[in-house]
């Protein structure tokens, strides 16, 4: 029996750690700069890229026949001597807009020559993905200022700071100032529309509002033009700085310096430089918006969405669950009805999560949201404000989903509070509510926290229902925006790491290229869930300590 139980436990541990190790291994190495290899095959084709995978296969006769005679014989001998297989590697070559593919398999027997050229660059571009190639020139206003790679590199370093500054400034103008002007315009229009809805289009109020509206629109228009002009100027200056690159096949292409997120001559880097590139990529991943259809850049909006949604869910579900459990355990007369309710609650925990998603969509978005829109946001109709998926509805849906967990855990915690405590409190002349608030709840708190931990664990990892109630593949405007009144926008759709994994892994046009990111995002999601749980566990441990007086 010891062997059986111990074996089962061991198997569980192996599976859990195996999973974690796999995810950590794949996810952790995604950002490590790997050497850029130039591979020439027997037909004289050349490829440039980094090896992302390697395995082996058994070559068939057709393949062997296509080889030159002496190679084929040598290979046959090699195969006969070995296990019948030869190696092959997956080379990430990119330059997608020129070649139309991201990856190439190269079979080891076909490789004629292989090296790691010193000036092979990997250029991470802002919106076209990666480029593998060699620098051939640095252009300012069309004039070629540098020709040799070291000189080009020098120039790039020299100018990239100023270019980046202009780029950021333009971005800021676009996102904040232009956004503000847009909203002012929108507000003016909405106010006019409200007056129209309230008073009618022929009223004096409407005409007065119309004059006001026109005056404001005029002001905004001028502002608008000033900002767009400024943005255009900055972009135009930046467009003067260009990097000329050449693919390994000799095709040339121009890349604006402003479009270069990162250019790395990997083959020249020592361990220290590689590490700094690695960390820099991680930092970008954690803090930036996604680029290039989610397959590049960061996942900050998804991290934010996941954490905020989980916290919001917790804030909703814990009080509700605790109150419901209190009623069931402390107030309701124990009997058949209460048992029935209890069974129903327990069964609710087994309902597939997508069902909650459908309910959330049908009830929150379609009924509540549409109702709120009609009442408070009638001016923006038919554009929905609350009548669609959003952070708040997603949190409420998940709160509903995790409610049984909290109720069951809380009930358990409440029933574990000894009756002698309650009696002691009543004997002191406490009312029922005083007893619950001062004695029962504090005593049950660690148990309630356990429920909360379980709810967080379940809620943070849930994806299916979110697709129906507001998770989006691309939602860069966060639900909290300090630059914009009223600063929180619970109605906005949001990004979620779980959904992001699904989107990147299965929905993007090149899921092969995105696979490393899938692992990394998974690693991040696991990390976040673990961190959220650790925080809760830590709080619970503190509560326990305080309760039992061991300091």
């Amino acid at each position, binding site marked *: 029996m010891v062997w059986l139980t111990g074996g089962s436990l061991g198997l569980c541990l192996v599976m859990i750690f195996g999973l974690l190790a796999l995810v950590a291994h794949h996810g952790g190495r995604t950002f490590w700069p790997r050497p850029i290899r130039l591979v020439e095959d027997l037909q004289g084709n050349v490829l440039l890229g980094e090896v992302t995978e390697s395995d082996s296969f058994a070559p068939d006769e057709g393949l062997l026949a296509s080889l030159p005679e002496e190679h084929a014989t040598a290979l046959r001998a090699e195969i006969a001597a070995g296990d019948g297989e030869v190696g092959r590697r997956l080379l990430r070559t990119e330059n997608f807009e020129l070649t139309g593919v991201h990856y190439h398999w190269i079979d080891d027997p076909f490789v004629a020559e292989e090296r790691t050229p010193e000036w092979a660059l990997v250029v991470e571009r802002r919106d076209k993905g990666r480029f593998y190639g060699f620098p051939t020139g640095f252009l300012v206003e069309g004039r070629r200022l540098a020709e040799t790679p070291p000189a080009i590199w020098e120039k790039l370093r020299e100018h990239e700071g100023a270019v980046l500054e202009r780029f950021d400034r333009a971005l800021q103008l676009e996102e904040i100032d232009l956004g503000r002007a847009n909203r002012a315009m929108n507000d003016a229009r909405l106010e006019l529309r409200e007056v129209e809805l309230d008073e009618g289009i022929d009223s004096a109020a409407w005409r007065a509002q119309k004059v006001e509206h026109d005056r404001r629109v005029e002001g905004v228009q001028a502002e608008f033009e000033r900002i767009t002009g400024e943005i255009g100027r900055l972009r135009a200056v930046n467009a003067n700085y260009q990097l000329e690159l050449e693919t390994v096949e000799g095709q040339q292409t121009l890349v604006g310096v402003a479009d270069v997120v990162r250019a790395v001559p990997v083959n020249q880097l020592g361990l220290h430089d590689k590490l700094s590139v690695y960390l820099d990529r991680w930092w970008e991943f954690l803090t930036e918006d996604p680029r290039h259809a989610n397959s590049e850049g960061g996942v900050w909006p998804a991290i934010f969405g996941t954490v905020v949604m989980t916290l919001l869910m917790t804030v909703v579900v814990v009080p509700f669950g605790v109150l419901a459990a209190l009623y069931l355990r402390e107030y309701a007369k124990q009997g058949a009805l209460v048992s029935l309710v209890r069974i129903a609650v327990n069964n609710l925990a087994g309902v597939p999560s997508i069902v909650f998603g459908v309910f959330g969509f049908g009830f929150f978005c379609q009924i509540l949201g549409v109702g709120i829109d009609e009442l408070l946001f009638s001016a923006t109709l038919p554009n929905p404000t609350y009548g669609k998926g959003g952070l708040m509805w997603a949190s409420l849906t998940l709160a509903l989903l995790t409610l049984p967990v909290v109720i069951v855990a809380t009930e358990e915690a409440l029933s574990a509070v000894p009756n002698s405590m309650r009696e002691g409190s009543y*004997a002191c002349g406490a009312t029922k509510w005083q007893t619950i608030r001062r004695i029962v709840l504090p005593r049950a708190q660690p148990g309630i926290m356990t429920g909360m931990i379980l709810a967080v664990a379940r809620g943070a990892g849930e994806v299916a229902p979110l697709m129906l109630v507001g998770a989006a593949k691309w939602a860069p405007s966060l639900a909290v925006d300090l630059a914009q009144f009223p600063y929180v926008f619970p109605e906005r759709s949001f990004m979620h790491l779980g959904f992001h994994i699904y989107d990147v892994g299965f929905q993007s046009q090149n899921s092969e290229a995105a696979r490393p990111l899938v692992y990394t995002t998974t690693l991040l999601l696991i990390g976040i869930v673990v961190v959220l749980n650790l925080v809760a566990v830590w709080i619970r441990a503190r509560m326990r300590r305080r309760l*039992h007086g061991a300091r």
Partner: protein
Amino acid sequence: MERDHALTPKRSSDARGVALASAMTERTESRTPLIATLERAETGRTRPGGLFECIAEGRVFEPVIHDEVATDEAVVEVDGFDLWYGDTQALHDISLSVPKGKVTALIGPSGCGKSTLLRSVNRMNDLIDSVRIDGQIRLSGDSIYGRGVDVIELRKRIGMVFQKPNPFPMSIYENVVYSLRIDGVRDRFTLDEACESSLRGAGLWDEVKDRLQNSALALSGGQQQRLCIARAIAAEPEVLLLDEPCSALDPIATGKIEDLIDDLEGLYSVLIVTHNMQQASRVSDNTAFMYLGRLVEYGPTESLFLSPRLKETEDYVTGRFG
């Protein structure tokens, strides 16, 4: 105060007390001298034998109430009190008065309804749905079960300590001032004062004064029970109900609690349930003997132990029965 853990009826002559005590502690080996001592008290017996059968069969009988207890001023008066748990009657027509400023003990075999009677005084039985009562209990003249009585207010006038120490999961300080807190007292000074005086009253102050903010659950069992007593007296109750306060404690802690009850005498009216004869005789002024939900004999502790009027009482206090 040192005391030996022997049967020492209060204010009895020392020589006799010691003789009785040694006889009772070693009652298995040498019962004869004890019975010889008690033989002299046979005068008042009304119904020789057969009373327990009489009770068990449910026939009516008059409990024996000694005249001395009737004269004291009563703080709790139980008057013809019946109580049912569902269909089973647990208390039958109990009438007894607890004198003010004295310690009254309830003794009797386990299951005879001592706790039930005690819990009826502060209406803790209200928490049990199946309980039904008849008759009256009065606290300082106010009816407890009258219509429109505020149970919460009533319980504030009565302190209760339970069999198992039940300190609340909070600091020592908060435990003691709990009843003031639920009354909404916020004033730091009042709370501090109540805390100190109650802890001193419960003889716990010196042991815990440096760690008032520590959790009460970290105290030893005996300390916890004294803390519960401090909590009960913090509200300055008119009566203190103790339900076998020492049964979960070791002998040393028991001795401390007994000393404490001695000190409380005069300041509080105490009603204590115990099934330890020695304890009843040591701490109480009056003792009531109950059997199967009925009061059998009630009188000053000394006479109940040394010269019981009923043979059944004698049998019980000497340990021949129960």
